């Protein structure tokens, strides 16, 4: 049952669409707080989605739920129609990979060993795992770090090693939590360009969901204007899902973050710069949720509106 998927390391062979990762009306309660309040979201091959929202909006929790690290208190998290929690770890790892926000490495491990661990799901020799790990390190331009130890590496080097580890796993769906964390501007742009390339250049083999609160970087994902879906989240609810090219995106993001964004064209890349502190926090959030709810009718957010209105009364 699970074997057929596990033994097929080339993700492109399976039929697209059947392996979509879906959250349906997901609620997550942790430590007495409702972190997600009815989230509907789906990700499939060929998708490039950016999950944006202010601190504490529930972005990371969405990823943790999608990858089965947290079980929904209510609602379902499925991949290809099956509950994530019912899949074996190896089977799940063949469908979706995840870059956690914090790499919690607790020993001065050799970089090559860390990256080779990304091959856990493959039943293969250590030699093959290490070859794949070296290739992944080369892909990210850090082949020379293979024999180095984790301690003593810079934050940027660690972040790129983590990306290489994720890449060796060869899963079709990639969940990236702040992939440009700790990177200098040049490497931030490189990383976002790379993400855009993976989805665009891979013949729809991959789908990526990328979490960030750095709106300014989104423009680098799709300089050629291909489709990037922006998913806005705050207070545990999806507020809107809009294409980056949409005329409404600036207003939607401004309301989501309660600041004024201004689109600027920098060398053909559309970027959003903060031009003011925006309206008061309360006002921005409540109007934001109502308007975003109305807007997202054409996407996939219909079921949420009533709960959104309720939520904005409960929590300013």
């Amino acid at each position, binding site marked *: 049952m699970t074997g057929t998927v596990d033994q097929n390391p080339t993700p492109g062979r399976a039929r697209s669409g059947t392996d979509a990762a879906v959250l349906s009306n997901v609620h997550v309660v942790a430590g007495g707080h409702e972190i997600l309040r009815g989230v509907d979201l789906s990700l499939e091959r060929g998708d490039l989605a950016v999950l944006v929202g202010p601190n504490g909006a529930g972005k990371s929790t969405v990823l943790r739920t999608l990858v089965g690290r947290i079980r929904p208190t209510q609602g379902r998290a499925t991949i290809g129609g099956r509950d994530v929690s019912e899949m074996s770890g190896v089977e799940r790892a063949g469908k979706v990979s995840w870059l956690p926000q914090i790499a919690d490495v607790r*020993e001065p491990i050799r970089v090559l060993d860390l990256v080779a661990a990304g091959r856990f799901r493959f039943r293969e020799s250590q030699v093959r795992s290490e070859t794949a790990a070296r290739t992944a390190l080369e892909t990210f331009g850090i082949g020379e770090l293979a024999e180095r130890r984790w301690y003593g590496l810079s934050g940027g080097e660690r972040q790129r090693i983590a990306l290489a580890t994720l890449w060796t796993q060869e899963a079709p769906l990639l969940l990236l939590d702040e992939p440009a964390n700790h990177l200098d501007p040049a490497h931030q742009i490189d990383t976002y360009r790379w993400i855009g390339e993976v989805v665009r250049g891979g013949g729809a083999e991959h789908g990526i969901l990328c979490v960030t609160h750095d709106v300014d970087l989104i423009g680098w994902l799709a300089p050629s204007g291909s489709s990037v879906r922006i998913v806005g989240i705050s207070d545990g609810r999806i507020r809107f899902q809009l294409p980056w090219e949409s005329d409404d995106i600036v207003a939607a993001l401004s309301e989501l973050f309660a600041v004024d964004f201004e689109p600027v064209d920098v060398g053909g890349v559309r970027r959003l710069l903060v031009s003011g502190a925006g309206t008061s926090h309360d006002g921005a959030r409540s109007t934001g949720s109502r308007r975003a709810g109305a807007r997202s009718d054409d996407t996939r957010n219909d079921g949420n509106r009533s709960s959104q209105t309720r939520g904005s009364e409960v929590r300013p």
Partner: protein
Amino acid sequence: MRRALWIFLALVLLVACPWIGSRPPGEAGDFILWQLRVPRTLMAALVGATLSLVGAVYQTVLGNPLAAPSTVGTTAGAALGALVAIVFGLSASVGGLPIVAVAAFVGALAVTFLLTALAANDRARVDDVLLMGVAIALAAGAISAGLQFTSDQIGLAKAVRWTLGHLPQVGYRGVLLIAPFTIVSAGLLLSQTRALEALVGGEDLAHAQGVNVTRVRTLTLGAGALGVSAVVAWCGPIAFVGLLVPHLTRKLFGTSRRVLLPASLILGAVFLALCDTLSRTLVPGREIPVGVFTAALGAPTLIWLVTRRT
């Protein structure tokens, strides 16, 4: 190449252990060599190997350099079980086994399975598991101290001797009794090498890569408890081996689990066999409990290892 040489040298030392020290010529000497020293060295090797491998695995799965059979309560549970038997003067035997050993085995298993049950919860964070282990160890230690306080002089002397850690003259029978437990335990632990390697990157990353974090945690804690319980039931809590040897091995052989785990096992065997040989030869005619020896040797070595890193 250099690694292989180290292992080879260590094994040569291990084999040489029974021949170290004086013995009378003729038949008596042969008896001492083949019926006392060889099985005792085998016992020391089994005990050292088990404690060290379990220490290396616990340090990985609990993500903490202080994790060891002694810091998660396994040895404290054994001590509690043994003390109950000693203090209440139970000298009978169960199926030919001394009841003290049986009680220690049960105590160690009970305490570690309590911890394993707590660790089996998906929501238990790894640091919490170690803290719970420390708390259980302290509680078991407190009960043991209370028991010692209420016991008579003879019981107290026995108890103190037991808690020092020693390698009893149990002959081949003792070796054959604990071997199945330690072999099953080591086999289960080594089968998790790849998962443990992934866990070095943190539980989140390991989960993403397909490791069933909770299952690996439960399985390794349980398998480790099985081996350590059998070992400490016979020998008492031999200090520092499970903590020191994995750190020493990492220094010599690096951090790759597929090298570190088997190397810890081998070096642990050699280390304890050597300590035992020293403990019986250093003062002629008198034997220093090997637990005293490992602690006296282990503590400074550990400090030296740590300061050398910085």
